[in-house]
């Protein structure tokens, strides 16, 4: 390996930009050529067989294609409902709900902390009336819905159940996902509310409740995407996420959960960035590691509980505001890596997403990209078509080693919960972000249109810009006022009181109380304030 690497030298005429980097972004030094003897995987299991390197299904995408899931939601529930119907008519197969920051952080639209942010980066859902509008005319028994929600995930999940109750849809028919992964919020995305330990309780509550009430629903999607976007490598993305996954497993076991049952409903969520083979191999390695950890450490016997299921986003910080149309090509390449890596659900970013909420035209290109790959390219025809490639098997093994090394580091810190409470993973992430930015600044990492092949004056050319209705926040406030006037104040007070008392008991599952509060039209802000009174708020450890 080192011999091969040593013989790789740039062509004499090559400028910096023409030189091909010999290491992957995760720092794995790649030989010039990988030969049969170097590659593992000679005795590779088949797809659908433990430890699932080649995929969790024996027939790959032949049985069923991945879910095309576009992320959208902005402004009012009415507007978002309209966009959903638009996307469903055009062949989208799952809905993905983006929520505004006040809803994510537990502030009602009339809270001073919410000012200027209502409906800005997603839809405002402060109470059941808003969610009823959001899904008006959409049968929750027929569609799978994914909510990007964490700090208030248990409440939004309860609101979804209450909406289904009102539509008359049986809970066991509901499919979809709530992100509900609080640990990575402390590291990268920042919508935490409560301290780590009570937050872990809310997650266990929703997972255990969902196992019984909504057996086809994914009550958690353990996400590496945001940490990746913040700056860590692909290997660290997988390692931090699996370490968080193990922390949730431990918490659920502590609460008396049956691992062979709850592990079936754990799912994962990642970014796909541009280094094609490393992205494919990180997914192959992740499937293998997760299955091995659950079987060898926890003695999981249920085959389905060992299966690592994941969704992805193609785009994120790999997209650039400069020369935005280049992003269409990037998303296409990333989309292919996701399919070859065996994703169950794929979201493709619109090319303008690096700087704004996508327009209808850009959102449509993003969906069409998936359809072209699914129906024209033929790459989904056979299972794991890259399996057995010398390079792919070698890189899968190398990624597995690197991921396990990082998981070991976190375990040495006392596990994910402690490392996060102490701010150590936050610090490692910030340092990685600094390194990534410096590598781009120095041109060590080439980003076309940004630090190479740059046309001066082009970078702020945004084309068509989507603008929100400025009257929106006023409309949302008026609707909230009307709900507060019309609802039964006694039922709200009683619901919140029962929630508070239940929160005082360590082992009481809070979900039934949230559902009750939602049915009474109590607001997200009221429920969160009730719990803050008991648990307090997370205090951010600042380590730079």
């Amino acid at each position, binding site marked *: 390996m080192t011999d091969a690497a040593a013989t790789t030298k740039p062509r004499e005429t090559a400028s910096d930009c023409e030189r091909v980097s010999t290491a992957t972004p995760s720092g794995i030094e790649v030989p010039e050529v990988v030969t049969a003897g170097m590659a593992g995987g000679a005795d590779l299991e088949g797809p659908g067989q433990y430890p699932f390197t080649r995929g969790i299904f024996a027939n790959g995408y032949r049985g069923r294609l991945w879910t095309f899931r576009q992320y959208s939601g902005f402004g009012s529930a009415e507007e978002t409902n309209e966009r959903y119907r638009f996307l469903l008519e055009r062949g989208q197969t799952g809905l993905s709900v983006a929520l505004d920051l006040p809803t994510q952080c537990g502030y009602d639209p009339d809270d001073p902390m919410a000012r200027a942010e209502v409906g*800005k980066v997603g839809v405002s859902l402060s109470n059941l009336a808003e969610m009823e509008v959001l899904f008006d005319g959409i049968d929750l028994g027929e569609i799978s819905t994914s909510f990007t929600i964490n700090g208030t995930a248990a409440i939004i999940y309860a609101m979804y159940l209450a909406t289904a109750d009102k539509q008359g849809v049986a809970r066991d028919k509901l499919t979809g996902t709530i992100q509900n992964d609080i640990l990575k919020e402390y590291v990268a995305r920042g919508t935490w509310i409560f301290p780590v330990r009570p937050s872990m309780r809310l997650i266990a509550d929703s997972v255990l409740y969902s196992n019984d009430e909504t057996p086809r629903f994914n009550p958690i999607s353990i996400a590496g995407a945001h940490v990746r976007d913040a700056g860590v490598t692909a290997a660290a993305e997988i390692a931090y996420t699996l370490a968080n996954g193990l922390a949730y497993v431990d918490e659920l076991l502590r609460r008396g959960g049956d691992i062979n049952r709850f592990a079936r409903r754990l799912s994962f969520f990642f970014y796909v960035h541009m280094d094609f083979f490393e992205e494919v191999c990180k997914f192959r390695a992740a499937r293998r590691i997760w299955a091995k950890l659950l079987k060898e450490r926890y003695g999981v016997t249920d085959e389905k509980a060992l299966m690592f299921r994941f969704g992805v986003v193609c785009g994120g910080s790999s997209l650039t505001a400069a020369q935005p149309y280049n992003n269409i090509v990037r998303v296409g390449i990333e989309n292919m890596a996701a399919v070859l890596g065996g994703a169950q659900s794929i979201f493709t970013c619109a090319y303008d997403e690096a700087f704004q909420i996508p327009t209808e035209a850009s959102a449509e290109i993003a969906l069409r990209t998936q359809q072209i790959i699914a129906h024209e390219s033929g790459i989904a025809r056979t299972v794991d078509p890259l399996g057995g490639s010398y390079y792919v098997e070698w890189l899968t093994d190398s990624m597995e080693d690197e991921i396990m090394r990082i998981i070991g580091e976190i375990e040495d810190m006392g596990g994910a919960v402690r490392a996060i409470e102490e701010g150590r993973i936050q610090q490692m992430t*910030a340092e990685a*972000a*600094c390194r990534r930015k410096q590598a781009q600044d120095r041109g060590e990492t080439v980003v076309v249109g940004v630090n190479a092949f740059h046309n001066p004056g082009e970078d702020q050319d945004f084309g068509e810009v989507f603008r929100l209705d400025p009257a929106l926040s006023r409309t949302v406030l008026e609707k909230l006022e009307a709900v507060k006037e019309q609802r039964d104040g006694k039922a709200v007070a009683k619901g919140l009181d029962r929630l508070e008392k239940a929160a005082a008991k360590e082992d009481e599952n809070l979900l039934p109380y949230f559902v009750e509060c939602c049915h009474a039209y109590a607001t997200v802000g009221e429920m969160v304030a009730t719990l803050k009174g008991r648990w307090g708020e997370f205090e951010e450890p*600042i380590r730079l």
Partner: protein
Amino acid sequence: MSLNLKRILIAKPGLDGHDVGAKVIAMALRDAGAEVIYTGLRKAPEAIARIAVEEDVDAVGLSILSGNHKELAIDTIRCLVELGADDMAVFVGGTIPAQDLFDLKQAGVRDVFTAAMTIDDVVAAIDQAIGAPESGQ
């Protein structure tokens, strides 16, 4: 290099939780020799202005990626003026469309930085802006 900038507050106004840019710039300024105070997430403009005045910083850097840069920058500057810190230099970094630059500068923002700039350029620009009134030191 010796900096004009001695103390700076890096702040995250509003609810936006994307703190990578803030931390990267904070670390770069610290490595360049400035004293850096980082507020952490979710600070109201009033709180940011109060901390800036209490800590007697030379400048405030606001990191905003939620699209609310105009409202939050204007509010923060208003709060600084109310506390008598009219001359405090305010910088904004984040996802800022070109068409908003004029409004931000009109509102009193000294300079605006996006991810397209190198870290070194951002540090130099902040330092130069701070040193401008009394150059030659």
